[in-house]
């Protein structure tokens, strides 16, 4: 495991831990998802650059487009939950509990 590999792995894991363990706002969860996507972009780009397989360097661009789609869907859901629940706190998403 090289330092570069370690860095993006650590970045992704940190984003995942942040998403999994403590979120008060839905927006924070979305930002954590964005952080995971950022580390994935860097991982794919660095894989392309280090292995000199330049044909693969479209992959980070495609990833960026898809993560933009995901982020915008998440923000639209933020608007929808703010409309129905009145707040973006994840504590208030408790209508479906057992």
């Amino acid at each position, binding site marked *: 495991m090289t330092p570069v590999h370690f860095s993006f792995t650590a970045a992704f894991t940190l984003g995942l831990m*942040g998403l999994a363990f403590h979120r008060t706002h839905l927006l924070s969860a979305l930002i954590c998802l964005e952080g995971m996507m950022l580390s994935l972009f860097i991982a794919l780009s660095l894989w392309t650059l280090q292995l000199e397989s330049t044909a693969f360097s479209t992959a980070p661009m495609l990833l960026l487009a898809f993560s933009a789609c995901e982020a915008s869907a998440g923000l639209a859901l933020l608007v929808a939950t703010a409309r129905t629940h009145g707040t973006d706190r994840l504590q208030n998403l408790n209508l479906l509990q057992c």
Partner: protein
Amino acid sequence: MTYLVSLFLLGLIFGLVAVASNPAPYFAALGLVIAAGAGCGVLVGHGGSFLSLVLFLIYLGGMLVVFAYSAALAAEPFPETWGDRSVLVYVLFYILGVMVVVGWFWGGWHEACWVAIDELKELVVLRGDVSGVALMYSSGGGLLMLCAWVLLLTLFVVLELTRGLNRGTVRAI
């Protein structure tokens, strides 16, 4: 250059620590901007200047939207910064965790691992990633069409999710 790239890698990790430690969204977005900037630096250090530019322009441009959202939603009078006790505990916990894992791997990182790949090459004008991305317009055309299609789909998704004045139970006005 190696020193600089290592610094940027460190910035990437610390940016994500700043995001993951659960501050107010306002500051979490700031942490993500820092991480994205550091990521751009890492990519430049490895010779991917075009991908770095794309990341800087598009990702940070998109981030700006999220940032605007968080600024609009920062309704709390005193948003939690990284200095607050609840957040600071997590910041220190995560930094400690990263340091423990670094210590675990430290022995395996030889000197050569740290050298960014760009230092081993001569000065070139045409970068590999530029020609690689240009492939998207020739042999990767199908994927480009797919991406455009998905962006169009997202437009409909967002419109359907947020459409309608009479939707929802809580109305501000």
